């Protein structure tokens, strides 16, 4: 019989090896599922993992998509991961992302048709502030009235979605849009556009911001006292208070980080890949980022890789539906398998498996 024994110290080697093992296990299990569905498992796996990046036919279109999709996921997930490390459960990043997009878009539209260099930076700041303010609602309710931040932050997503629809149908609607919902297109004016910076790379300012956020988060967590306090408060709240950490200040700080990054991600998305503010510009990145944060083990480098992997399975999944006619639920099941194996294999870094000898009881 198999038995799990807790390791005295988590294994470094397994922490690195588990994601690789998980991807391999997903390929095997997913391959079996595809075979049962009557598809060639090798072709299906190749279409999901290989073709989006290297196929001559599709890579030109799908390779840039990798960064386009991964950028906002990483940016939001980095902000969330700080709170999650501290045991502060902000699951309303989607709302902060939407409010950031609205605030940033509103500033851009207010300057329309100005063409100064300063317009886009102001929009980014407005986006960050929008996300920040939306995040402060659950943070302050939690610190002042001890409400549950999980519920408040989640429910505020629905409020934000309604504000978004009101804005795209009303106040921010394109006056020259013949009554269609949605704002003016931001990429028409250079001052408000968030263009592809290198041709066919998918790289826009939001992706740049995501990479910078990864680096800053890494430095914050490994070198800065605040990063230490965040990790400490999450692992051992009582020791953190003993060590002089103010738990309320930490709640506000972590929500602030998450709100700023999610808000900025919203602005980058609405001015870049989405081009205009519409009811459904968001792609649900704020929710998916929660998965990315945990998939990346709440570690900045892990989140970077997890964001890219998540983006790849989405792009590859679309491609497999299109090219091989795989049903969408099968693709979703495949993505679910990947998450399942990644989290299940995590056991290996904290526990060792022992074969239990058969003994006469």
């Amino acid at each position, binding site marked *: 019989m198999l038995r799990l024994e807790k*390791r*005295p*110290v*988590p294994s470094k080697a397994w922490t690195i090896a588990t994601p690789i093992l998980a991807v391999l296990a997903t390929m095997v299990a997913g391959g079996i599922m595809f075979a049962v569905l009557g598809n060639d498992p090798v072709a299906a796996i190749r279409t999901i993992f290989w073709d989006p990046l290297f196929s001559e036919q599709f890579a030109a279109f799908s390779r840039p998509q990798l960064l386009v999709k991964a950028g906002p996921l990483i940016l939001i997930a980095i902000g969330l991961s700080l709170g999650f490390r501290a045991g502060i459960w902000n699951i309303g990043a989607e709302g902060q992302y939407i409010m950031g997009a609205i605030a940033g878009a509103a500033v851009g539209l207010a300057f329309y048709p100005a063409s100064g260099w300063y317009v886009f930076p102001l929009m980014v700041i407005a986006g960050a502030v929008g996300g920040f303010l939306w995040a402060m609602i659950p943070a302050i309710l939690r610190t002042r009235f001890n409400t549950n931040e999980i519920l408040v932050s989640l429910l505020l997503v629905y409020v934000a979605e309604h504000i978004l629809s009101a804005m795209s149908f009303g106040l921010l609607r394109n006056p020259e849009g013949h009554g269609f919902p949605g704002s003016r297109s931001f990429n028409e004016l250079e001052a408000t556009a968030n263009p592809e910076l290198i041709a066919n790379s998918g790289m826009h300012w939001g992706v740049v911001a995501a990479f910078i956020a990864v680096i800053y988060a890494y430095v914050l967590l490994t*070198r*800065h*006292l*605040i990063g*230490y306090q965040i*990790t*400490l408060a999450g*692992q*051992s709240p*009582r*020791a*953190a*208070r*003993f*060590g*002089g950490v*103010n738990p309320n200040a930490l709640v506000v700080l972590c929500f602030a980080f998450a709100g700023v990054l999610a808000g900025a991600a919203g602005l980058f998305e609405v001015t870049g890949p989405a081009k205009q503010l519409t009811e459904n510009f968001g792609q649900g990145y704020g929710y998916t980022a929660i998965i990315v944060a945990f998939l990346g083990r709440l570690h900045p480098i892990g989140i970077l890789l997890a964001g890219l992997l998540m983006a790849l399975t989405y792009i590859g999944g679309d491609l497999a539906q299109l090219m091989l006619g795989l049903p969408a639920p099968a693709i979703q099941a495949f993505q679910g398998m990947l998450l399942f194996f990644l989290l299940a294999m995590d056991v290996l870094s904290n526990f*060792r498996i022992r074969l239990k000898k058969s*003994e*006469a*009881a």
Partner: protein
Amino acid sequence: MTDRLLTIDGLTKAYPGVTANDKVSFGIDAGEVHALLGENGAGKSTLVKMIYGLVRPDAGAMTLMGNAFAPPEPRVARAAGVAMVFQHFSLFEALTVAENITLGMENPPKHRELSDRITKVSHDYGLPLDPERLVGDLSAGERQRVEIIRCLLQDPKLLIMDEPTSVLTPQEVEVLFHTLRQLSSEGTAILYISHKLEEIRDICDSATILRHGVVVDTCNPREKSARELAEMMVGSALHQPLRDAPELGNVVLELKELSVPSATQFGTSLKSVNMTVRAGEILGIGGVAGNGQDELLAALSGETPSTPDTVTFDGSNIGNLGPNARRELGILAAPEERLGHAAAPDMSLTENALLTGAIRKNLVKKGFVNWGATRAFAKQVIADFDVRTPGARTAARALSGGNLQKFVIGREVLQDPRVLVVNQPTWGVDASAAAQIRQSLMDLAAKGAAVIVISQDLDELMEVSDNFCALNEGHLTRPHPAKGLSVEEIGLMLGGMEEQETAHA
């Protein structure tokens, strides 16, 4: 008596990197009180866990009443007549005594019947206990009775007790020993684990001494002095703490009418506590667990701030300051709970050195942690306090209790405190490490620091303190010079007498 109850033959259990038990063999007769002696990390806990079915041995065999005995889980061990009272109680505070006991039973009887049995057993063995009381309202001694009665209801052949007296007043210890002697005379064998050598000499018929997982000796503890036993355990001559009569300086820290409401339902509020400590003084604070010790430490460390004028340091009001502001002034603390309060379990020793050392050791510059200096500080603590660990990278939870405690105390002592508050500084720590910790506290006082030692170990308090006071239900008694206090006087100060009378009624 000569009926061999349990024979242990060559039990071996290895964990990664350490052999906890190496071919351990000994025997226990029916009705015998057998002591298991050893330093922390000597393998006592692993051994009893194997007997109780919590851990399976790698090799070796046990024989219980002539039959091979290899319990795969505690249920089997219990069915075979082995019961255990753990050092840490597993009781639910919000449930009554009877409900708690029901939870541990395979086939619980009807409530009425169980209550009657609890009352009968508690009466028969002189352990007064009302089955309908909430466990949250019980003292530590009474909670232990719940655990013991839970075991006695199974009619055990062998009762294992892990450090049973660490939470008891002297009077409660007497009650417990009376019960154990009665059990023994009825033929129940008792395997008794303790660091307290005088106790072992008092109650045990024989002793097996473990050192580094190996049986080094078996003896009759009554024929040995406590010092001889300690030296067998440690394997070398024991270092006795030394202390010169101190000259006390000015008042450093003063509490005036400090009242702190309890943070939790089952905590204890501090009620109008007055206290002064002088430079060079060691103030011992005794008391049975749960009488406000944690709350007092939190009020002193700054974790629970109060109104400014209730705490004064060098004459200035500091009651409103938090932990780090107090550290800056030189008021340091080492809480009782090592894992999760004094140290973060999953963090390395280096990271844990930063936890309290950041300010006085200048480990943070402009918000950035100087990890090099932090590591050096951790290594200094490890070297100066003889912390046995592979290195500063090791996670705190991988250290044995005694070693982590040395680290926690060392971390504060090496920061040159003006006031050091420690709660249970040697709890669960082996004799030689405990002596070392006490010596370091005395050295600190000799250098002019004021030291407040909160402890339930009265021998320890008598050994180190200049003045002694006791916490009872959140009240602090007036201090008495520790020299010349009798055990009876201390017992009365701790106030453990009345509750037994009321429980009887």
